[in-house]
């Protein structure tokens, strides 16, 4: 039982972050806070993947003469790391687009509160 928690503390941490991120993204009204929540969520997933690639007693996946090539259990799995490089880039790009949208929204509506924005949007010319 203890092992279930201690042995997977990386995953538990990631899940905690995911819940925090989701909570922020969904429940918060301020656009920036939603954005932060979404980013936390995405980062948590990245942490999850990276945690999944680790092995007990293994080292970074760069060729080490002392260990050799055949003994793959001594190297951690590089694949999730490479996948996460892509995911990090995606996260950065998404944040960039989101910030651009937030700036435009602020310039047009002078507020970043979602409920106020929705009310004002409805009042504007509907089509």
């Amino acid at each position, binding site marked *: 039982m203890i092992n279930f928690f201690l042995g997977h503390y990386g995953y538990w941490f990631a899940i905690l972050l995911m819940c925090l991120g989701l909570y922020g993204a969904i429940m918060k009204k301020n656009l920036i806070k939603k954005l932060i929540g979404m980013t936390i969520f995405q980062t948590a997933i990245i942490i*999850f993947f990276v945690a999944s690639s680790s092995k007990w007693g293994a080292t970074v996946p760069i060729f080490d003469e002392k260990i050799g090539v055949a003994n793959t259990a001594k190297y951690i799995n590089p694949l999730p790391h490479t996948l996460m490089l892509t995911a990090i880039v995606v996260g950065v790009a998404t944040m960039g687009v*989101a910030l651009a949208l937030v700036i435009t929204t602020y310039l047009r509506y002078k507020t970043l509160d979602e409920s106020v924005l929705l009310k004002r949007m409805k009042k504007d010319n509907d*089509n």
Partner: protein
Amino acid sequence: MIIRNSAALIPLILLFTAVSIPIVALKKKQIAFFMVMIATSLSVIISFYNIFRVLKVGTIHYHFGGWIPPIGIEYVLDPLSSFICLVINVIALLVLIHSKKIIEMESNIKSVPYYALVLLMLTGFNGIVLTGDFFNLYVFLEICSLAMYGLISVGGKQAPVAAFRYLIMGAIGGSFYLLGVGFLYIKTGSLNMADVRSIIPHLYDEPTVIVAISLMVIGFGIKMAVFPLHGWLPDAYTYAPTTSSALIAPTGTKIGAYAMLRTLFFVFGVNYVSKTLHITDILAWLSAIGIIYGSIMAIAQKGMKRMLAYSSVSQIGYIGLGIGLCNPLGLIGAVLHVMNHAIMKACLFLVAGNYRVKLGHSNIFKLNDNIRKKMPWTTAAFTVAALSMIGIPPTLGFFSKWYLALGTIKNSSWIFLAVLLISSLLNAVYFFRVLEKVYLKPMSSNDLEEPNMSKNSKADEVSSSALIPVLILSVALIILGLLNTIIVKGIIEKMIPAGM
């Protein structure tokens, strides 16, 4: 070389053109449209070629860079993926022909970056459809999503907010999918769809796999706008500019549907998802609720674009229902409806765009029958598309409903049959309301005044580049309706996965 690499060419051409547009069109902005036309036309031609090749040869696997899967990434051309690829590219081509007029008119859209984003989005779509690798799908999913956020945000005043809300939901959806892929990778050790399919039967009882499927389905569900994950759709479609709505509405959600089909039936297996996990049952019920919900909300709308947006929620419910039924007829209905809805929605959004070009708005309650006199062809196309949405033969809409009805009967799901039929009637309510407005003289004084309408009734139709795509789409609805067996027997029946 072209023939050997045809599977990969479409995303590559589109990507390459997307990236080079800002450079090449730096001085002369008109080149951008020209390059877009070339790229999408090539995509359409290659899609046709792909379909014929697949029908002759069978499923084609293309290994990117020569790396053999499961280590390398592969593209898979089978009847399902090549069919959806074709539908997306043809619709995109027609909408982009129409876009020339719209982009000229909208002052706050810069044509060069806009077209670049459009091509990026199409790259994403085609990549999702053609790929055979889970993570590759995530990459293209994010590519097309980011492009979509951008395309939606250049609309009216409310557009950035709508785009932002879509961004939050879409990013969460993509992340859910990524998490699902992660779980799947942890258990199976592979990211390749065919490889995972061979490994999964050994892992049927693993809770990890069940969680993985659930997360992936939620991710696709957000993209597909299944009820109740559809919240981003109405605002996004309403406030986006016409071309964006017309590009995204027919195709964007179908990508989610395709991904769901692929994952549920072709990777995890029909029996597993339906009999053991009952995911398809949940999907069917949620879709049924979505069908009714979308129709009722559509009736309540005043603006045509918002009405069409809620109508989309309802139509996507049909596709979800077809997938959820898990039998061949339901699948035929769902895939045929993918094509059908793409054509209908593209036609309807383009008509709304034509009205905005000529009248400056597309508020239903401000329409009156001057429009029919001024824009007879556009209104005629609208009528055909509306009849198809309601499901009047011989349009294509009747036939996709017919197959779905047969599918529900085969499963003895009488409630779903009733839902299908009731929704046709609800569709009739909100479409005939618009038809009454444009064909008949104003009835009572609770219609809003329309000061901009000039009283002369000479025809003042939109220019041909804006009119011809609309007409082609509406004529296609009738022709494809009558000839639907060619498509059903020729392609769709070959898509039915083993185990149905």
